């Protein structure tokens, strides 16, 4: 569904992404893993068409995302940023309704069907009881769920509003999440993980997320791409990619990677730091 090939991008003289390729199939949950500064967020922004790479292309169903008009692209592809800070006091419902903007004409106001879609999206993330609350009064986890709801409202197609063959989401929709659990405590992490799995299972929603939390990645993703210093070290199904050698290569940390007997998921237990000299010798 989404293919990136040979993506190269540098900020000034500093290369951030070097020949990165990524393949996202429909219904997949792909995790982009890597340490701070590895280029995860930059890659996500390139995938979203928010940033144009200096080399390579990103194709959505075979079409270059750079060539898709912004408003049409926004109906198929939504981004959930790491954190949202508001300049003014919007209510939860107002934030969710902002997801409907790509579906409106230049001077059009949201109609009843848009409100319905926004409220359904809030319902799906469990935030409907908060619809009239001021966004700034919510906790970090609640805010995250509201922003995800806005993204769901953005991707929902509206039967009462059809404007041509490009409208709606004929090829399925894509949700990109930047560090969805980075600012959350354990309770909210579990809640957001559950929400991500549910959206994927119930709606077949394709997702790409960045994270540096190995256990979170192992618990929600189907495929992983390991990113270090702007290059893909390995990519593939979680079971094949996530092992002790990968953790060491990514973070310079010795770790046990085991299968948890209860959940059947891989869990990563960090043991200690790897001597940088040993690490360099092994990489050589």
């Amino acid at each position, binding site marked *: 569904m989404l293919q990136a090939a040979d993506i190269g991008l540098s900020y000034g003289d500093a290369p951030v992404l070097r020949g990165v390729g990524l393949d996202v199939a429909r219904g997949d949950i792909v995790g982009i893993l890597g340490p701070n500064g590895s280029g995860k967020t930059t890659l996500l922004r390139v995938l979203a068409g928010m940033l144009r790479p200096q080399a390579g292309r990103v194709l959505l169903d075979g079409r270059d995302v750079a060539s898709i008009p*912004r408003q049409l692209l926004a109906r198929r592809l939504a981004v959930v*940023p790491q954190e949202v800070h508001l*300049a*003014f*006091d919007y*209510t939860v419902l107002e934030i969710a309704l*902002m997801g409907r*903007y790509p579906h409106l004409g230049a001077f059009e106001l949201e109609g009843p069907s848009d409100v319905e879609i926004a409220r359904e999206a809030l319902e799906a993330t469990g935030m409907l009881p908060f619809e009239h609350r001021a966004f700034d009064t919510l906790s970090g986890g609640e805010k995250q769920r509201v922003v995800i709801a806005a993204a769901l409202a953005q991707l929902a197609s509206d039967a009462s509003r059809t404007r041509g063959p490009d409208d709606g989401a004929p090829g399925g929709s894509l949700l990109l999440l930047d560090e969805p659990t980075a600012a959350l405590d354990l309770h909210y992490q579990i809640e957001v993980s559950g929400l991500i799995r549910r959206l994927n299972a119930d709606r077949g929603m394709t997702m790409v997320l960045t994270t540096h939390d190995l256990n979170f990645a192992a618990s929600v993703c189907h495929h992983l791409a390991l990113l270090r210093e702007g290059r893909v070290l390995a990519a593939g199904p979680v079971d094949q990619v996530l092992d002790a050698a990968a953790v060491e290569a990514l973070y310079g940390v010795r770790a046990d990677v085991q299968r948890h007997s209860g959940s059947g998921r891989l869990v990563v237990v960090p043991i200690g730091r790897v001597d940088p000299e040993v690490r360099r010798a092994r990489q050589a």
Partner: protein
Amino acid sequence: MSFPLRRRVWLTFAGFGALAVAACVVAPLVGTTPVSLGRAFDRSIPFEANVDAQILFVARLPRTLAGAIVGAALAAAGVVLQALLRNPLASPFTLGVSAGAALGAMLAITFIPPLGLAGLPGVTVASFAGALGAVAVVYLLAGVRHRGLSTDVLLLAGVTLNAFLSALILLVQYFADFSQTVRTVRWLMGDLDVSSYLPIVAALPLLLVALVAFAWLPRALNLFALGAEHAAARGIDVPRAQRVAFFSASLVTGAAVSLGGPVGFVGIVVPHLVRLMVGADHRVVLPAATLFGAAFLVSCDVIARTVLAPMELPVGIITALIGGPFFLWLLLRQR
């Protein structure tokens, strides 16, 4: 806030529109000299002999209309700049945009003598050019950091730009002759002493162009509150929306300053009062602030005309006396 939005928008236009119209109808009737409406509208008395009609149509009505336009324009510019820069303390006055417009107008008044203070549309155009120049400086500053300027940087930049432009204004004044100086000093205080309809007509084209932009902008302004990247991901052409916002804010500030001088604090007091009343959605806030701004400045001008009667104070003194403490309160509340 209750929905549907369409009803809220119409209620806003109706409610705040009625307020603005009421202010504009009542204001001309208030003043040091009582005016008889019956006599003023009595067609049997020739206009030259009808003192009531003269006071109403020559002295008070243009002043009221100018007040409505200036108030509406500055309030709207405040809303747009605050949303654009993601900063509740932004306004034409605090960013130095009003000072830029004032400098442009001063240059036109002083160095294009045949036009004089009422000379048009030279002053209007120069005022707009000055506002645009100041906005360009803000634009460059804001462009340096895509995530928006921090409050500290923004305020410092505004203070600096204000001081710099004020020095240039003083320099221009230094070259002006004495009779001009008396009038321009008063004008610089923010004065609505407009005694003809000509400057109002001259400002209209700028305002009409800006109105179209204001109808198109609010959705982008809402998304800017979440951040420019967010707006881009929601299908907004961010650079274009930013240009339209900066340009329209310059247009209305230029028009306002050419009419009433750099009246202070309207662009910061009105948007915040309106947000307290109607919430944050710019599709409601922008029209509400525009209409409330008109009512607010017309009311302030009534106070300015009557509080020390028969003296008529420049309205800028009144708005600064109200706006200064309000601004400090906002600043302290932010921390």
